[in-house]
Structures are given as C-alpha cells and as structure tokens.
C-alpha cells in the first residue's frame, strides 16, 4: 500500500515562481487563476490523489509555503515462515 500525503500550500507565502509545479512528477500542483494578498498567481493543489510523497515540491519551495503531511498507511500483517 503506497503512502499518501496531504499537500497544503500557504497561498500568501507564495510568490508564483512555479518551481514546485515544474518539479512535481505527477502534476499534483498547478498555478491559480486568482491572485493572493501580495498580487501573485500562486501554486495550488489540483490533484491530491496523484501525489507519490516524493516531497520535491516542499524541498524546492524557496519560501517554505508548502506543507506535506504524510499519512502512514495502516500496518498490514506480514507472514512469517514458522
């Protein structure tokens, strides 16, 4: 069972550099059509389900606007041989 994460973007920290959008391998993120308090078009989560928890977006963000909360998958029983 693959791990899941909830990606949250603090839109008012974002300056619209688009690094996260460019580095996300699964197109989880896209730029907004609306502007934030500073006047920038900001990054937003458009496809949360596709996230593979690579954390690239959070690592790339120069303004620490992205939070990635990893949801641990439920433990599955592992069989043992005797």
């Amino acid at each position: 069972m693959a791990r899941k994460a909830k990606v949250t973007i603090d839109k008012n920290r974002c300056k619209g550099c688009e690094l996260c959008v460019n580095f996300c391998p699964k197109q989880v993120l896209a730029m907004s059509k609306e502007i934030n308090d500073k006047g920038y078009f900001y990054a937003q989560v458009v496809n949360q389900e596709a996230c593979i928890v690579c954390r690239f977006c959070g690592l790339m963000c120069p303004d620490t606007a992205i939070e990635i909360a990893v949801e641990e998958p439920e433990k599955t029983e592992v069989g043992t041989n005797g």
Partner: protein
Amino acid sequence: MGKILMKGNEAIAESAVRAGGLLYFGYPITPQSEIAEYLAHRMPEVGGVFLQIESEVAVANVLYGAAGAGARVWTSSSSPGISLMMEGVSYIAASELPCVIVNIVRCGPGLGGILPSQGDYFQAVKGGGHGDYRCLVLAPSSVQEAVDLMPLAFDRADRYRNPVMVIGDGMIGQMMEPVEFKEQKFPPLPPKDWATTGCKGRKPNVVNSLYLDPVVEEQLNFKLAAKYEQMRKNEVRFEEYRTDRELDCLLVAYGTTARVCKTAIQRLDEEKICAGLLRPITLFPFPEDKIYELAQRSKVVLTVEMSTGQMVEDVRLAVGRTKPVYFFGRAGGMVPSPEEVIEVVRKYVEGGGR
C-alpha cells in the same frame, strides 16, 4: 562568515545596514516590500532608523533633508514609487547630496504588474526627474552581486555627492540565492563639511537648488557635468563572458536577462555558433567603448532586454553603423527563455548579419 541562503530583497537590506546605511525611509510596494519588512526589525537591533513615510513623494523629500544634514540615507521602491520620487531626486542631485535609491523594477507603464521587467532603463539612466542631471546606476544580476554593490553604492554616493541608483527587477528581489557578506574597503571619504549640522562657531551651510541668477545656475550645470564626466572616466563597470574569441554574435544584456544569455551562449557552443556576452554593471556610465571594441570582433550585435527596447538605443550609439545591432525583448513580466534567445541568435547569425 560562510554563505547563507537569502532572498534578494532581504540580502540588499542587510548589505545596506552593514555598509552603514542606517537611515531608511520608505513606502511599501511589491516586489520590494521585503526590504522594508526586514529593516523594520533589523534597524532597531543596530541603532538605525526605519521609518515608513506617508508617500513616495514625501520619502524623496525626507531623504533630501536627512542627506542635507549629513546622514547616510537610502530608500527602496519599485517603478511607480520611483516615479513619484523623481522630483525630489532631481533636487537631491542639484543640491549635490548623497543618497542611495534601490529600484526593484516591476512592469509598466502605469501601475503595471508586479513581475520582473527592465522597463525603467530610460528613467534610471536618462535622468528620470527634470533638469540636467544623472544618477550613477548599478545593475546587479545576482543576489550576491546586489549584496556586493550596496557598499559601493553608498561609497560612490558620498564620494560624488550624487544619488546612486541600484536597479534590480522582481526576479533579483524575490529570488533566494546563497550570499556571503564580504567586508569591502574604500579609501577615506572627504568630510561632510557642507552638511547642515548646526552653525555654532561657523558660517551657516545652506542646502539649496534654486538659482535665479543664470550665471550661477550655469556654473552649477557645468560643475555637475564635470562630475558626470569623472564618473564616465572612473566608474564604468562590466562583465565579459566568452568574448575571448571571434564572435558570430555579441550579446549585450544586464541584470536578469544577462543570466539567460549566459545559458544561451553555452548551448550555442554545441551548435558551433560563437556568442559572447557583454554585461554592463553600470548602466550610467555606460561601457560604450568596450561594446564598440567587442562589436568589431563580431558579425552581429544583439541586445536582449525585458522591455520593448531601451538599452538597445545606447548600444546603437556605441556601435554606430559599424555593425548591425538587433534587439530581442519580452515584456509585461515575461522573462525570455534561453531557447528564445538561441532562436533569435541563430536567425541573425545565419541571416549573414543582414
């Protein structure tokens, strides 16, 4: 001290503080508001003054007054704010007072947008305000260079008793890069014996820019002109990149666009197209002699700007009719990509320079 990661605006602010720019007056405007935000908490730590003024018009006049009293003063703003300051800057230049003005350019005209642009070239290098004056204009192309140029800006402002403008763009201001604050040494400055510091025991100093006697006013104009001539002789700064060879194309670009051009030059090497870059660091004085010299070794000259063509006029003045000078620009907050530059270079080089 090692390198730290800093946002351009904050790095500029810190460098100014370290250079003794302890009186800052400003008014917030994107994309440079982080300068004011940073100084609001930094100035009290170092015994400096951070004061938000009611408008940019007033900021320029507060600078005028504080500079007249002999303080090392500075401000920062972005394009529309700088326009509002221009009357005061003209007075400061006329009264021969030092100050540093940082312009983190946004796109225009009008209120424009908040994304990177180089549309304020004319305003910065051709005066901006009224009357016969010039600012010394420094154009960093990285956060590190912005940090390095701030102490120089303050020194030259004091040395020439003239406004110095540091011109970046939204990208330089907003980008985070590793920076190192290196201590810079300058020769001693002459005493500010012209400052209005209280005239007890001496004749009063007067800061003024009104001269109704045409003979006196002309003398001031000629004195200022001589000062700008000194700048042309002593202050021209530029960087050459891959110009140590016969060139198919000489690129001329400053600030952010110069970085794009460097990437384009590296990729053009793979296609056996020899391109080189001349990057003016001072926009006034302009490295016209160097541009002329390099143009003679190149088939064509291409100026790349984030405007619809401003610096290209000075490049054409420098090159004259000796070589074809072309222009490529993006505007409105669009930053040219290396691919676009490559395509344009290819077009003009393969066109045989015609």
